[in-house]
């Protein structure tokens, strides 16, 4: 890039800032303002819509003053201090705030799934079925180490296709099953602890520490079960939230404390924010300052749509979106990564197959440009008319949008895989590894952050897609969250579009604004998560 050289060295033709003539200055200014035009305009609109959703002017000025003093001022000051200290302290602070936040979001999503969709019996049966199938495969491997590939394949297929559903049916008929929290503890808690242990073991290259970490995490998860449920934290909620928010936070804190650079001061930041919030809430309560009468409040997030704007909410559509995203991720992520792996690692350059591969590449880049409404038509014709799925059910919506983002995932995963240096691959081949071993042990772990970044961005786009949902007949508004993946559903953007048709002022400037802010918050937090992952792993390479 031209500018980098000039900026770094001062340039051989004069200082960068020194644009000698007026037309040059004017041109640079015009270009800058053009760059800012879209950003400023959309930022302005976002401010407007947030204002309509929150209605800050209805709040007591004292309310703002209190929160400014307890929350905003201390956290801004702390961030400024971290930045001045330099050395990545501010990044540590923001990450330490971000990890528990995203973990809580993810954990709440999982909790909602269990409250509304999956009953604990189904989950238990599913886990037992998976354990049985996995156990058979692993046992067979251990007993017959030299088994031929065909034999392994038959055993795996039989245990997955025949044995697992049988077990599932069998377990579903049990009259009594263990307590719900016990099931969660041994699925999520134990699974999370094992993953945490593996991470630590890999990070330190020490299996014993990893085992200790896993044991300690699991012990804490178990101990937390005995918190008094009257605080609102039932054992189920504790186990899931600790697994998704607590464990990653603990691991991150541990890595920062142990790292050589010693930046643990940043870890204080979340405490400053949370303490500020609590203190502010307590003071506001004590002094009797009323908060804003926002449209976007707890009631909006937890109730169904209604004819009356004051009672309208987004809850069923929120659950619908979460469930749809589960289908989208399951249907598009493995296939997208698989396709990218083939194109980058296996695809031949010449011969008849090479022509086909080039055709596939062109095809994928073209698919990324096909209008979303056409994908909706595809979903309607393929899933609803031909395969006779119901119109407007979660699976159809998820698979349609999964197809829509598939090319985007493939392209971004290809870029991530291409960025893995080929010396790593050659080293692996040099050790005698086969191609698949190289891919699984070397290429994939190295490319995973990049693949995740691209995929999360694609999922962020998927969550806002509306036109395909209209085409496959997603419901305008549902009043109950879907019961299963074959149930009628609505999603957040679909719900917002349903509100467009409501002419009342309160809907246009109130309810809809609240819905838009909810949707954009979800989208921007997904983008932020992607950027966090990218920044964290960029330093390494």
């Amino acid at each position, binding site marked *: 890039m*031209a500018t980098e050289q000039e900026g770094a060295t001062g340039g051989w033709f004069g200082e960068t800032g020194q644009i000698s003539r007026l037309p040059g200055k004017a041109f*640079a200014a015009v270009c800058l303002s*053009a760059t800012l035009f879209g950003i400023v305009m959309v930022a302005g609109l976002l401010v407007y819509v947030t204002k309509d959703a929150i209605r800050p002017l209805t709040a007591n000025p004292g309310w703002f003053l209190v929160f400014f003093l307890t929350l905003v001022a201390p956290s801004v000051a702390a961030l400024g201090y971290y930045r001045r200290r330099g050395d990545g302290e501010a990044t540590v602070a923001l990450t330490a705030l971000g990890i528990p936040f995203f973990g809580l979001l993810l954990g709440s999503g999982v909790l909602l799934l269990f409250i509304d969709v999956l009953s604990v019996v189904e989950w238990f049966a599913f886990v037992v079925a998976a354990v049985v199938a996995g156990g058979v495969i692993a046992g067979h491997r251990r007993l017959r180490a030299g088994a031929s590939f065909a034999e392994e394949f038959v055993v795996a297929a039989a245990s997955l296709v025949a044995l697992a559903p049988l077990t599932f049916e069998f377990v579903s008929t049990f009259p009594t099953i263990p307590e719900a929290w016990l099931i969660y503890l041994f699925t999520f808690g134990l699974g999370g602890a094992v993953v945490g242990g593996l991470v630590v073991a890999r990070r330190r290259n020490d299996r014993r520490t990893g085992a200790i970490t896993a044991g300690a995490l699991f012990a804490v998860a178990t101990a937390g079960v005995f918190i008094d449920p009257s605080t609102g934290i039932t054992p189920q909620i504790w186990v899931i939230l600790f697994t998704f928010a607590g464990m990653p936070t603990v691991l991150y804190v541990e890595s920062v404390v142990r790292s050589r650079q010693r930046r643990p001061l940043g870890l204080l930041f979340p405490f400053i924010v949370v303490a500020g919030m609590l203190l502010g809430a307590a003071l506001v309560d004590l002094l009797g300052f009323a908060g804003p009468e926002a449209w976007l409040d707890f009631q909006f997030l937890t109730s169904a749509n209604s004819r009356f704007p004051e009672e309208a909410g987004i809850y069923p559509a929120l659950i619908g979106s979460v469930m749809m995203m589960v289908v989208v991720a399951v249907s598009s992520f493995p296939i997208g990564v698989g*396709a990218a*792996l083939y194109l980058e690692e296996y695809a031949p350059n010449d011969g008849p197959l090479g022509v086909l591969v080039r055709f596939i590449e062109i095809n994928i880049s073209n698919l990324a440009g096909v209008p979303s409404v056409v994908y909706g038509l595809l979903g309607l014709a393929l899933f609803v008319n031909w395969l006779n799925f119901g119109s407007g059910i979660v699976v159809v919506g998820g698979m349609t949008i999964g197809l829509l983002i*598939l090319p985007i995932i493939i392209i971004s995963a290809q870029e991530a895989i291409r960025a893995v240096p080929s010396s790593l691959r050659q080293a692996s081949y040099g050790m*005698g590894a086969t191609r698949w*071993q190289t891919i699984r042990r070397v290429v994939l772990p190295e490319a995973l952050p990049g693949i995740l970044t691209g995929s999360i961005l694609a999922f962020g786009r998927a969550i*806002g897609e509306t036109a395909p949902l209209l085409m496959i007949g997603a419901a305008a508004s549902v009043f109950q969250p879907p019961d299963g993946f074959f149930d009628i559903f609505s999603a957040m953007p679909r719900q917002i579009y349903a509100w*467009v048709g409501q002419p009342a002022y309160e809907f246009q400037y109130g309810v809809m604004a609240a819905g838009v802010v909810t949707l954009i918050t979800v989208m921007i937090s997904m983008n932020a998560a992607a950027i966090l992952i990218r920044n964290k792993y960029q330093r390494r390479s």
Partner: protein
Amino acid sequence: MSQETNTPDFVGQSGIRSAREQSIKWLLFGCAALSVAVTAAIVATLLFDAIDFFLEVSPVGFFLGTEWSPTIKEEFGVLPLVAGTLFVTALSALIAIPVGVASATYLSEYASPQTRSIIKPALEILAGIPTVVYGYFALVYLTPALEWLGLPLSTFNALSASIMIGIMIIPMVSSLSEDAMSAVPDSLRQAGYGIGATKLEVSTGIVIPAAASGIFSSFILALSRAIGETMIVVVAAGMRPRLVPSPFESLEVMTAAMVQLVTTDIAGGSTAYRAMFAIGITLFTITFAMNLASSFVASRYREEYQ
């Protein structure tokens, strides 16, 4: 894999391994080939119903008819929809193309790496905002604002929808054009400075012409995106087909007509239902051709400098 043999296997071609390797390879190939299957499925599903449609309504009447009224009068002339689509696309191009090229010039030639690292993600967010939200912005905030400026707008109008589409596709023009400009070799710039050109002259006289085909291909891609854009026009531009569109009035584009057909109560097998697929395949053909053209132009560009 778990079964490492004791005898060294330098080529990695022992029976088990190669069978597994082969099956994994073909499995991954299947994933990649799925994209072709998706394309084929799109074409097939669109064609099936579109052919049925064209057996009932003559293609001449469809492509040259000047009245679109599928449910009431059973008139299936697509020209008003095409006119609306082209009109909205042209209006949004008027915004996106100059702004996009100017911001690409700024990002590639003037911005410091630090500025670029802030501005580029901010621009990306423009492309990531859900389009139904843009439609809401256009309907609820932009139209009243433009009315306040004194423009004679109706509630649903082409102008605010086009402005929003324009803003939505700015990041596409700017990031693809910036890639093209950054790929221009520095020696060309240095030659320019060597003959005493100013930075302005180098940017407009050397870099932009040298990157012209890349910039042009970004235009095509962005316009194809604008043609296929649905929710902004559905929400903000209204549903009234017009052969001669006006920016201040409501109009109907092809994507909006499809949404209208699917959301009104039409029977599954009726002509109006199939008309949706006929529009769908027209839209698919146009955008697919534009995407192909864009990658063709861009690949010709790449040949020039490497």
